[in-house]
């Protein structure tokens, strides 16, 4: 069952390359992603505890095709599975030169990310990690905006550098395992000296930090988000950046406990600086996409800080927030794309008065904005509350300083809201109309998720509790 999560997107994606008819490719992709979603939903609802699967893969070097799905993996697989149908349905009208290839690449990305979330074998993890990245490079470089090559190149160099570190780290640890095995459990049981932990910690963490991204390794992100095709941006920011956090929780914390304890202060400092830094920059952004990108960097900074606070509440908050941030940022991107289609511009200073032209879109964007501001009774409040709490327990000042971001996020989010939707109609917005129905439906689904999980977050909290306890070794 669990392997279907990877298999369906792979098969649908590969098939899609050979479909020349754009409409057929789209239907194929939509069907494949919906099927994946159903399987994921079924797995999350019906299965109890951790689901595992183990098949021989490369026995010569001690690597198996082993998958394992605990609470965190379930949640992220669900996010991944939810995201693609929403992305596809909201970007269905976009014109791409070769739809078959486009959808194929998207599906392969999804498959890769599924594998990343499920892998219980470090080599397999690395394999999927790269599998997820390579299609997205092509998506960005072939279907992106005017400066796509430059942005993709930056993105590629950054993440490839990270992957290289990761590979070195994996091989380094692999050689240290007594039985030369890539199994996650044998990595967990490694007895490393202090220096070995430190080396391994940085080799792994740099890769994940670039992916998140953590200040000051973040500059690839605004460019990539700005230049990538909207579907690519959505999948990047909704799901892919969660890979960094996921991997940090899954690999860095358990494998290098001592190094984590000695470096967590510095990482929290950088994360909190990044949180405020990105928030400050977002205040002055005029480009809607870059604004959302910096907002995302700020939120991720908070998550990273909360991970390294090593508090149960904080980690619980991060896990919940990974899902919620994914959903919210997806909503923001969908609205941003719709607005760009309607007005032909992304500059906030050129917009205005859209609330009169597109009231439904205005309300939906308002909900997304409020979720971004993490107002209570939206889904992200619960995560931020727990994360700030964790940081506060780690250190009063870290918590208090990080909290300043709630003011900054209000400033820039409402500023964007005001510039786009309120005020007088500008020459760019006067011909705007409501977003197409399919976009609206996608947004309504997201709105419902935002409110339900905001009022009743218990399902997410219950789902991820086992992971928190396993990672922090508490009963």
């Amino acid at each position, binding site marked *: 069952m669990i392997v279907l999560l990877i298999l369906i997107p792979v098969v649908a994606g590969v098939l899609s390359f050979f479909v020349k008819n754009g409409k057929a490719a789209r239907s194929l992709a939509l069907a494949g992603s919906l099927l994946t979603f159903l399987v994921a939903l079924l797995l999350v609802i019906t299965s109890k505890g951790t689901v595992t699967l183990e098949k021989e893969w490369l026995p010569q070097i001690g690597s198996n095709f082993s998958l394992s799905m605990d609470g965190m993996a379930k949640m992220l697989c669900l996010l991944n599975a939810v995201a693609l149908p929403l992305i596809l349905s909201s970007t269905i009208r976009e014109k791409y030169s070769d739809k078959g290839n486009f959808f194929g690449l998207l599906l392969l990305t999804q498959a890769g990310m599924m594998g990343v979330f499920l892998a219980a074998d470090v080599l397999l993890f690395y394999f999927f990690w790269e599998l997820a990245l390579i299609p997205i490079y092509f998506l960005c470089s072939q279907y992106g905006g005017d400066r796509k090559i430059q942005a993709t190149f930056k993105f590629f160099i950054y993440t490839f550098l990270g992957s290289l570190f990761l590979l070195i780290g994996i091989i380094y640890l692999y050689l240290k395992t007594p039985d030369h095995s890539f199994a996650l459990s044998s990595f967990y049981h490694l007895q490393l000296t202090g220096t070995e932990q430190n080396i391994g910690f940085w080799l792994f963490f740099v890769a994940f930090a670039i992916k998140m991204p953590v200040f*000051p390794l973040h500059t690839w992100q605004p460019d990539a988000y700005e230049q990538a095709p909207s579907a690519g941006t959505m999948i990047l920011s909704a799901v892919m950046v969660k890979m960094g956090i996921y991997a940090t929780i899954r690999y860095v914390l358990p494998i290098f406990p001592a190094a984590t304890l000695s470096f967590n202060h510095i990482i929290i400092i950088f994360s909190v600086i990044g949180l405020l830094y990105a928030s400050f*920059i977002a205040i002055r952004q005029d480009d809607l996409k870059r604004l959302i990108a910096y907002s995302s960097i700020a939120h991720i900074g908070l998550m990273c800080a909360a991970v390294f606070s090593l508090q149960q509440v904080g980690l619980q908050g991060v896990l919940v927030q990974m899902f919620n941030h994914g959903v919210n940022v997806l909503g923001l991107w969908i609205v941003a794309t719709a607005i760009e289609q309607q007005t032909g511009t992304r500059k906030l200073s050129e917009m205005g008065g859209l609330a009169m032209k597109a009231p439904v879109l205005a309300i939906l964007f308002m909900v997304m904005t409020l979720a971004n501001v993490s107002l209570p009774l939206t889904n992200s409040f619960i995560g931020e509350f727990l994360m700030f709490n964790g940081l506060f327990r780690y250190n009063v000042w870290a918590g208090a300083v990080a*909290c300043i971001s709630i003011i900054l996020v*209000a400033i820039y989010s409402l*500023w964007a809201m005001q510039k786009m939707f*309120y005020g007088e109609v500008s020459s760019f917005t006067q011909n705007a109309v409501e977003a197409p129905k399919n976009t609206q439906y996608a947004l309504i689904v997201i709105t419902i998720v935002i409110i339900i999980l905001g009022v009743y977050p218990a399902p997410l909290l219950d789902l991820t509790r086992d992971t928190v306890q396993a990672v922090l070794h508490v009963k």
Partner: protein
Amino acid sequence: MNLAYLVPLFPLVGFLINGLFRKQLSKQAVTLVGCGALLASFIVSLVLFCDVKTGGAATRAYFDFINVADFKIPFAFQVDQLTALFLLIITGVGFLIHVYSSAYMHEETSDHFARYFAYLNLFVFSMLLLVMGANFLIMFIGWEGVGLCSYLLIGYWFKNNQFNYAARKAFVMNRIGDLGFLVALFWILARAGTLTYSELFTPAMLAKFSQADITAITLLLFVGATGKSAQIPLYTWLPDAMAGPTPVSALIHAATMVTAGIYMIARSHLLYSLAPFTNQIIAIIGVATAVFAASIALKQNDIKKVLAYSTVSQLGYMFLGLGVGAYGGAVFHVMTHAFFKALLFLGAGSVIHAMGGQQDSRYMGGLKKYMPVTHITFLLACLAIAGVPPFSGFFSKDEILAAAYASSPVLYYFGVLGALFTAFYMFRIYAMTFLGDFRGTHDQEHHLHESPKAMTIPLSILAVLAVVAGFVGIPALFAPHAHLLENFLAPVFSDLPEHAEHLSHGTEWMLMGVTTILVIVSIVWAWKKFSSYQLDASEPSGIGKVLANKWYVDEIYDAVIAKPLLKFSGFLKNIIDKRVIDGIVNGTGRFVQYTSRQLRLVQSGQVGGYILMMVLSLVVLFVAFWNQAYILRFIHWIFK
């Protein structure tokens, strides 16, 4: 108590219906849903009120809102005497404002009309959550919720960017306060592991807190209160909040939102009773705000601005009461203030409605004969807010001032100064608006009319309340045990330590007399000076100019905080991010490119050059590794 969940549920349902079906519903249907929801809430609140009067407090948990390893926060409501009183004020005054709005907003198109009512209902819903929550987190939900709704309502006319700016300012200012609130919550959670009042406010639990903890927590909570209840230094959003429709101002200023801070501190009075330092701060900030805002109101001409600053000033009195330990007095003032301030705003709305949107009282005058009901009710409200006996404001303000005197005479003196200002500016604006000759255009004069029934009836009801509400709090001086409110709230505040110092009856008589006489003198002065006001468009000078410009606080904030913040953001964006960080990244790339360009020159294509290089390298190698041991060690090192 079983019905408690209905109280917030009705406005929520009203919000959903009006919000989702705003295109389909007619204005009548919208009014019916909006007002009906509030009326239903009000009736349930009455039932609850009677319940707690006989039965006492009750808590009901519905589900676990947050359930994590370290703590558990239920989604629970608690209704006790304090909550019941606030419920009545919110739903009662709120209902009247809804009814009033249905006439005031009649010119809006029907979907905007529905949007307006949806926001109003959401506002009331948030405020109800705030006062009904059984723990600080539910309070925080309402706390942020009213901030959001004020944002939505202040920016209701979203075409006007000035209004949007005011809305955003309100939200951001509130958020600054919320930051303090949030940090206080974390602090409490870290020490006590619970946010539920009934578990938290017990001596055993409070013993877990050190004195420093308590001082810090109470101060942080107070920061939250200064944001929401518009105290120095976070008060500037409230006068700007006048951008919204006038009934919204009434709702924000009287029944909801700004009283949240008072409620929160009254709710955590046990914590505050352990923090003498914080109490001092609160009393000082309170009295400072009272005088400061009143002084600004002296020179404002916009009728709504005057009322706004009077709200800030009255809130200052409430905080003064909280600071000196007169929790009952503060809550009493919340109640009377809710009546007369709602009345004032609705009266001002009625005037503005009649004047076709004109808010500047310099261009009004003589409205007495055109708008009799509005005039009478406004006058009653002015008397009440000025504190003339036996109107309601007199009793509540007197209670606070007496307590302030008992705590420190200096606080009392400043309090009286503020009261004098209040009497003066209220009657100044009253006289400029209703007395003398009409100074507006002929067109306006032609259209002057008394407002429709849907507006005058709420005015009349509120006027009655503003007059008689004081009698629920007759001081012991006049009749022992006649302070109904104090008796009613006694179970809530019973856990407070007894006040050590009691004023003698003689002193109390004297204080009361002095205040009353001064207030009346002030009223007469204002009446004399402004009853035959002539249009004077000249700019005030000297101190008058400073007051008219609100002590330049907005300008100072702009120069000290807003501008540097934007500059700093711009610096980070353009210099640090683009030049430094991206510079380093791109610099690395450029370095590689440069090096490769230089190295490329070696590949000249001249065979001779290659061979020369080869030979030279061989020679170098031979020289370097002449000693065989070196070579062997090198080879060994490669293949190790």
